[in-house]
């Protein structure tokens, strides 16, 4: 019975929406998670799998398939070689995928080789220390890093050049220290990093804010700053931004979907409309929130522009950090 209210609302929207009569939904919708089951890409796909169902924007059940390999490279490759015009499938991606595109880890394929459909939502970088850490605000830790870049051991869930590392490197830059001089430890994912932080093996963890929701009440860790321009809503409203503490470090971790580059405008637009319709649905937004993401409703043309800008920015950043040579 609980579900009837959003359901009625969804129906109302479906009737009101002028596009619903025109846009033909994909017949056999599929979301490709370019990883093994259980990770962030799986989650990204589950958002539209359950979200579209609960929002009643899509009747056909969506299939989620897995395509691990090369942090999304295998999927990016496949959608650029054989499934370039598949009208039924969208592939999940994240900021990490974009960084790989920017640094050339996806081989010859660039951001121009995919049609970017829509966002699922976003997360933001966070600067986290253990509860008994001597650092109580961002300023303290930044000044310590400035004085001696090796004074705090920083850990996160990705290798050098990953987006987890990028957060740490940006922090170093903002502190006025050389990112190459820091002590950085790469763990296998956020779980191991948190364990290392709690065990005192690292002093600072550059993680994501959403994963902290489980730990906020426990009082075992302290979030020094969120890497966003403004404060987030409940339950993160007490977490100060890096900007308000005098360090303008911003790092959104976006999650979204792309399709092959030769997909017809018709099929592409159908998906875009599907997203736009769902963005206005409470049940869909609730699912985005439940999965630990913040609202970021961008789809269609806007989305393509956003991604192209973002990748260009990341490319400049990667050159600055010494990850890749400047493109000729």
């Amino acid at each position, binding site marked *: 019975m609980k579900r009837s209210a959003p359901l009625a609302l969804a129906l109302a929207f479906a009737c009101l929406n002028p596009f619903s009569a025109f846009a033909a939904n994909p017949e056999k919708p599929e979301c490709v998670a370019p990883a093994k089951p259980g990770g962030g890409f799986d989650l990204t796909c589950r958002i539209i799998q359950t979200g579209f169902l609960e929002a009643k924007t899509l009747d056909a059940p969506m299939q989620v398939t897995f395509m691990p390999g090369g*942090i999304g490279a295998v999927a990016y490759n496949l959608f650029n070689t054989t499934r370039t015009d598949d009208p039924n499938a969208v592939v999940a991606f994240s900021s990490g995928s974009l960084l790989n595109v920017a640094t050339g880890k996806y081989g010859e394929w660039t951001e121009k080789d995919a049609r970017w459909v829509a966002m699922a939502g976003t997360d933001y970088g966070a600067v986290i220390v253990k509860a008994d850490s001597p650092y109580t605000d961002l300023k303290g830790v930044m000044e310590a890093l400035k004085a001696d870049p090796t004074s705090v051991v920083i850990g996160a869930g990705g290798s050098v050049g990953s987006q987890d590392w990028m957060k740490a490197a940006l922090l170093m830059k903002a502190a006025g220290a050389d990112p190459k001089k820091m002590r950085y430890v790469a763990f296998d994912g956020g779980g191991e990093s948190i364990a290392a932080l709690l065990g005192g093996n690292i002093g600072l963890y550059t993680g994501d804010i959403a994963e902290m929701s489980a730990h906020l009440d426990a009082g075992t860790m302290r979030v020094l700053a969120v890497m966003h321009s403004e404060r987030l809503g409940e339950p993160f409203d007490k977490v100060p931004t890096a900007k308000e503490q005098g360090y303008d470090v911003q790092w959104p971790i976006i999650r979204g979907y792309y399709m092959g580059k030769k997909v017809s405008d018709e099929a592409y637009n159908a998906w875009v409309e599907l997203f736009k319709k769902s963005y206005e649905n409470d049940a869909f937004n609730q699912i985005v929130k439940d999965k630990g993401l913040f609202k970021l409703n961008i789809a269609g043309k806007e989305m393509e522009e956003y991604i192209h800008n973002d990748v260009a920015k990341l490319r400049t950043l990667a050159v600055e950090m010494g990850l890749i040579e400047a493109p000729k």
Partner: protein
Amino acid sequence: MDVILSGLGQGFAVALQPFNLFLVLAGCFFGTLIGALPGIGPINGVAILLPIAYSLGFPPESALILLAGIYYGAEYGGRISSILLNVPGDAGAVMTTLDGSPMAKRGEAGRALSLSGVASFVGGSVAIVLLTLFAPALAAFAVKFSPADYVALMVFAFTSLASLVGKNGIKTLLAAAIGLMIASIGVDANTGVMRFTLGSPELMAGIDFLVIVIGLFGMAELLHLVESYARGTLKTLPVDSTFVSWADIFAVKWVMLRSSIIGFIVGVLPGTGASVASAVSYGTEKRLAGESGKSFGTGDIRGLAAPESANNASASGAMVPMLTLGIPGSGTTAILLGALLLFNITPGPMLFQQKPDIAWGLIASMYIGNVALLVINLPLVGLFARLLTIPQQYLTPMIAVLAFIGVYSVVGDPFDLYLAVGLGVLGWVLRKLEFSLAPVILGVVLGNLFEDNLRRALSISGGDWSILLQSSNSLILYGLAILVVALPIVISRMLKARQNKAV
């Protein structure tokens, strides 16, 4: 203690509700079947059923109980194809093939299956009791375990496995090196640099462990069967109705207990799971067996009981950091964690205070599930053992089909199928040349853990190697490593000296 008892009481009240009880049993049953398929393990089982449980609108504790049932069931079922077909059912069941398969080949499939069922039960039970009593303390221990300590743990694992040396020590070393080299393929976890990927995106994430296992064991076994057929030595085994005896169980009681404890502790540590747990316990038991350990690998019941107790114990151990800290210790617990979040339950230190019915209900369901698995599995032994009476010309192709399903369901990329076939040929050649395959697999399992943690430790210390000897955990593990190597030598010297005196 009172808190634990009242919590458990509350938990059993939840878990014994008829509907939840039914879910535990159903989960265990399907989990066993899923686990019995080679290559399809607990991760797939839980991942497949999570959305179904969610969409059926079960209350959170029921859904979680169902998924946990599948998790243990799959861990139980992994041994079945290891024993019957010499194809590991999942990553944690590799060591089970070493002694389980020879037992089945000499007509004791029923004994092997039932004994391993009992060993799994003991492993699971010991681990759950430890979990109930010491979870918070263990969680604190797990997070304190530093990269330097993992290095020490790997050194300990390697030394206890040195007991796996076959006839030719150099060949064992080369086999391990091949495994380590295979493990080094892919993106380097520290610097993100590609290693040995030959520009192929399929190799960027490395070769999946399951593909290696199914290739080296399953495919190689297949070729071995074809070879035996061509020689005319391939026979379909008669129905065997052997069953584990009380004497068997009694003979391995200490093996099971030790392995359970080792498995549980390894499972508690984030980053190491059933495959490391079973390997370490197998190596340790073989060392401890001394002279009589020579029969390990030829169908010794101790060599079967040790890894089976350990891998089930580690499955429960992995629950500790997930429930108490919200940190998943393995791929499967990561999915269970995802399931909790899906139901708006945040695991971690507050779980036992905020949602005691769920936390304790889950723990109680582990007790029930473990008993249920034993009850479900023992009568099925005869049925599973009958698999071997399928004529070989049909059983052999079916192994290939199962292996292909398993490999393909990992990644969904036909590239892995070729890889598995290639590894099968390699495995067959290695067997022909009297290399043992276990060191290859162990090289794959332990290689990356060793290298990554060594480099993490050195990153933390800024290049100072003394960090490796700074914690008491490391020192204890190095001490144990020396003990494991030295003890059998000392004991055999003493025995000889005594004999000489007697003469």
